[in-house]
């Protein structure tokens, strides 16, 4: 399936539409059954930016792993552009919470790793790797090994790796969670710019309600035991948004109140 992707910009503008239908997952921990996800359904339009917030244990990371194809649900099904997700694919890029750069490869090699299975001339790939390194602000650190980078720099390299194959669907598992607030707000703007350019669908799991409202078209609030969708908030205000807008503050209040009662 890797050949379906190319180095050029995605031709189909309406790629990356997700349908999650009645997805369930139970874990068995010490003779107890834990419903990590219970009949979760959600439709995500192509090009939408979705954030999932919720307390730990609500199954939001599990759901993201299902979307990536890394794990499979017990019940229900997930399709992306009509195709059932049954294994990982370069069409669904994921950025993990811990950067997961291979420690024995330098920044350049780590980013290039995601283009290995794609068709294309080596020169084109090299150019793409360099442009992504420039994009995330790591110019001059191409040959640095991950242990020589700060946490923020590593995470930026991981984002470059996730973006390199131009996936129509980008999955982010608390990608900015470990960063300082300055790097964080800078990368938030960067994410929006990238999304605008690539027209990709983005699904982001986060703990940060403010970040979710700032970035998303819709914020999905989940509740734990069993993991379910509690509410979905449409964020319609124009970007760039300001964290002190009355709309913004009101929505944040509603979401934090909802989370506090769960």
């Amino acid at each position, binding site marked *: 399936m890797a050949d379906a992707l190319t180095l050029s910009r995605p031709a189909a503008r309406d790629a990356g539409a997700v349908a999650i239908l009645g997805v369930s997952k139970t874990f068995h921990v010490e003779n107890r059954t834990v419903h990590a996800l219970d009949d979760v359904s959600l439709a995500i339009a192509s090009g939408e930016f979705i954030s999932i917030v919720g307390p730990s244990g609500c199954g939001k990371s599990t759901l993201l792993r299902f979307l990536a194809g890394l794990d499979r649900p017990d019940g229900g099904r997930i399709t992306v552009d009509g195709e059932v997700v049954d294994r*990982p*694919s370069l069409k669904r890029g994921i950025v993990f919470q811990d950067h997961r750069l291979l420690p024995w490869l330098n920044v350049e090699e780590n980013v290039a790793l995601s283009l*290995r299975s794609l068709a294309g001339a080596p020169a084109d790939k090299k150019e793409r790797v360099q442009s992504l390194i420039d994009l*995330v*602000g790591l110019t001059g650190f191409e040959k640095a090994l991950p242990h*020589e980078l*700060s946490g923020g720099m590593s995470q930026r390299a991981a984002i470059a790796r996730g973006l390199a194959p131009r996936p129509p669907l980008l999955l982010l598992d608390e990608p900015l969670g470990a960063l300082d607030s300055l790097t964080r707000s800078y990368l938030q703007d960067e994410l929006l710019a990238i999304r605008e*350019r690539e027209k990709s669908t983005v699904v982001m799991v986060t703990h940060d309600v403010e970040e979710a409202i700032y970035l998303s078209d819709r914020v999905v609030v989940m509740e734990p035991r069993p993991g379910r969708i509690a509410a979905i908030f449409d964020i319609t205000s124009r970007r760039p948004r300001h964290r002190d807008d009355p709309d913004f503050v009101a929505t944040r209040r509603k979401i934090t109140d909802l989370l506090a009662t769960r």
Partner: protein
Amino acid sequence: MSDVTFKAPVIIRDRRPQRAGAGEGAARSWPRPWLPDAAARVLLGLVPPLALLALWSYAVRQEWLAEQILPAPILVYETTLDLLLTGQLAEELSVSLARVGAGLAIGGGLGLLFGLAFGLFRTLDLYVAPTVRAFCLVPSLGWLPFFMLVFGIGETLKLVLIAKTCFLPLMVGAYEGLHSRPRKYDDVASVLELSWFSRVRLVVWPSILPSILTGIRQALSRGWKVLILVEMISSAAGLGYLMMWGRKAFQLDVVFATMIVIGLVGWALDYALTRFQHRATAWSFKAA
């Protein structure tokens, strides 16, 4: 959304120093001016052997031991020089190095294969590995009487014994490497749709390499010691033979010269491998 503009890399570069923090300093400072540092370390490292030499000279001068048992350092030095100049030392050393090299290649290679097989196939690990480990835990010298009867006392015996000694460290190294390797990178390999070959070469192999290199270091130092022992028992060449010859001729200066050479060469081999390990798998000494 149209009012979102893409930031130029120039701006990013301007902002970087404030955000990158300590990590940036670490990345920049890696070509350290470490020459004076290294010189100091070499000097410090020379203190204990020089002190030992002084004690030795003092002991000889005070005649704590008979001259035939504890030869004077200067005599040992002259003997070493003599052995060097006649070419005998180089000859015996090359015989010994060739033996340890061959033994390491055979035993270590087999150990690596077995370790990888046990690490990859659970059935083999369950049913075969305990027997292999038990065999290995009988010390090399314990096998010697049996091996002597089977292989004679020729070249085969030495090879078998060194190979047997080198087998376990590499088997354990490869096995532990596979068992303790970080699984989280498998997700990355899956998501990036790496081929089986790329996965092994770029994700699995580098992650177990540090453990294998540690195995090679242990195999080499153990193999070196066993080699000298077996050369002392049955050989007509090699450093162990030279030492045995010195003992039989009651030339303790030769024995001492050989001891020093054995120690120095063993140390140099281990040092070279350690340096290589630090260069080849630098990340494993730093990464969390």
